[in-house]
């Protein structure tokens, strides 16, 4: 059987998600056995000029050049996977949208700001159709392998739509609210095995908000500690600012 052609691309990001892939260690070799990686700029000089069976996209779309490039990749790809918060929800890059573009460009680049234009940070799916999502900043490696396998087999993958608290309780962590600090677990999509809380930190919401926080959030946690949903929704902007772009579009239509 011919091996599927897989290509990796990166846009505005820290390249941490592709490192997570490299960190799979020898498991990576098993995956490489079943696919044909035709482009992966960070580790390969080779380039490919035909179609891709699967394109794996990291990073956010932040300028016109990137918009054009991601559209071209989409045209050439049968399946497109967005991986990492930068790609799936805009991630930390979205904080830029808290500022006026001209102002933040001038702040960082001063008189040189005019040399280039950026656009508000967008998640990949806000520009082109995305077939599979692997959330997280960085991605949780076991989930990435599952999604890649689903994509290669043509099976659907459903991102869990319950909240981090569910996993956190299974892991028997003491709730951060009991320690007097705010945690975004009650509104954040599960799937990371409550990674940060297991390590004594709080959840920052990197996997994105559950689709309907009024229904799907951990109401027991919220009511037990008397926390308003709005308060923690506000804190979600570190990773989830880009979701507002969808809302604005809806307002317009």
């Amino acid at each position: 059987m011919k091996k599927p052609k897989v290509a990796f691309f990166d846009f505005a990001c820290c390249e941490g998600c592709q490192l997570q892939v490299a960190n799979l260690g020898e498991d990576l070799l098993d995956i490489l056995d079943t696919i044909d990686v035709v482009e992966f700029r960070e580790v390969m000089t080779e380039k490919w000029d035909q179609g891709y069976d699967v394109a794996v996209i990291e990073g956010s779309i932040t300028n016109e050049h990137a918009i054009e490039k991601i559209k071209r990749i989409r045209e050439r790809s049968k399946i497109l996977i967005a991986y990492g918060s930068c790609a799936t929800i805009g991630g930390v890059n979205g904080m830029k949208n808290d500022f006026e573009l001209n102002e933040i460009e001038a702040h960082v680049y001063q008189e040189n700001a005019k040399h280039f234009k950026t656009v508000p940070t967008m998640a990949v799916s806000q520009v082109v159709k995305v077939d599979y999502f692997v959330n997280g900043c960085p991605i949780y490696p076991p989930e990435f392998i599952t999604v890649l396998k689903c994509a290669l087999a043509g099976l659907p993958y459903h991102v869990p739509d319950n909240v981090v608290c569910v996993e956190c309780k299974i892991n028997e962590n003491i709730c951060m609210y009991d320690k007097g600090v705010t945690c975004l677990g009650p509104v954040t999509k599960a799937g990371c095995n409550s990674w940060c809380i297991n390590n004594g930190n709080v959840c920052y919401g990197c996997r994105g908000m559950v689709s309907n926080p009024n229904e799907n959030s951990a109401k027991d946690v919220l009511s037990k500690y008397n926390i308003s949903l709005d308060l923690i929704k506000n804190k979600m902007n570190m990773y989830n600012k880009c979701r507002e772009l969808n809302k604005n579009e809806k307002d317009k239509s």
Partner: protein
Amino acid sequence: MKKINLNVNVEYLTRVEGHGNIVVNVKEGILEKCELQIVESPRFFEGMLRGRSIFEAQHITSRICGICSCGHTLASIQAAEDALDFTPSPQTIKLRKLLLHYEMLDSHILHIYLLVAPDLLGVKSFVPLIDTHGAVVRRALRMKKTCNDVCDILVGRHVHPISAIVGGFTKLPKEKELDEMLKYLKELRTDMDATIELAKTLVFPSFERDTEYVALVSDDSEYPLLSGDIGSTDGVRMNKKDYKKITNEFIVPHSSAKHTRLSRGSYAVGALARINLNFNKLHPKAKELATLLGFNNKVTNPYLNTAAQLVECVHCLEDSIKIIEELKTTGIDYSEEIVVGLNENKKIPVKAGSGVGAVEVPRGILFHHYEIDDKGIIKNANCIIPTGQNINNIECDMKKLVPEAIDKNKEEKDITLLLEMLVRAYDPCISCSAHFLDVKFVK
């Protein structure tokens, strides 16, 4: 230089972190253009930090770079604690040193094996090496994974550490975990020895250009990575607070990426700079290897930065083992475990101030600088990344390399490869450097 024409245009340089182009034009023997252009999409971290709490700075700036996430974390924490006048405990400092060693090992191994070795073995990437050098690739991935695993144990994960924050650690390694890390590291020694043997057989291009090397220096006997003054091989020594006098950022028209210079036209940071300044403080085992590779005298061949990284791998591995053994003897004080979050419990007193962090990360010295108000809100942030400091030096190397290569009758494709290898030798992290610097899109 011979009166020939040469056009080198490497678009989207591969096997480096981030995006850059090499452009060289020689017309009738005259070097008209010799540039390393940065084409990364900027992410505006310094702008985005404004208005955020100083207790979020580590979490956010760690995301500047996946490879140096622990380095950014440590520089960020140091700058924040400096601004808050907070002094970390000796135990915390020890664990931070361990974390920095892990990152150094991880990053250097990735660079040596996956990014540089293919050049030296004459292939385009590590992928064909799976068939021809299967054992080597497996060893590389195994070593990489070990570094990653010990990081997981210490801080939750390597890419964007979880438990290392302002004030200390949210989770301290259990006795069992210390044993586990120690076991992994001791096992790593076998692969490290094999790596050294492999490295001895590799031939690096010969090229010399003397430059000023800059790294942390100190008066004690420890190889300085986490703290110290800023020093140079031209005799400069300054407090980290004066970092701006060192970096002297200036704008050049061609890429308007901010460049840096100190006592002469350019300076270099990174493993080679550190060893040129602190050779004597290396762990004995690392020093032995360094002597064998000729580092006991100042080395001015930039291609040897990769060899210097290998020496540091040995140093960091041996020193990590030493640190863990010490921790096992003294025992860990778990009462130091902290819960901070956004400092909602006011665990750490907040005041207005300004703080600088200067940390040796894999690619060289990294500076973070924050100004905060009396509520701990960031008013201004500045980050100066190693690659930003090296770009100017790389271009100076290129300007000497190209005429020399032409006079040696090298063909265009060989010159192109030499240039790519030169840039790669510096292990540039363009995804880092350009987040704060100006960028020109070259289409």
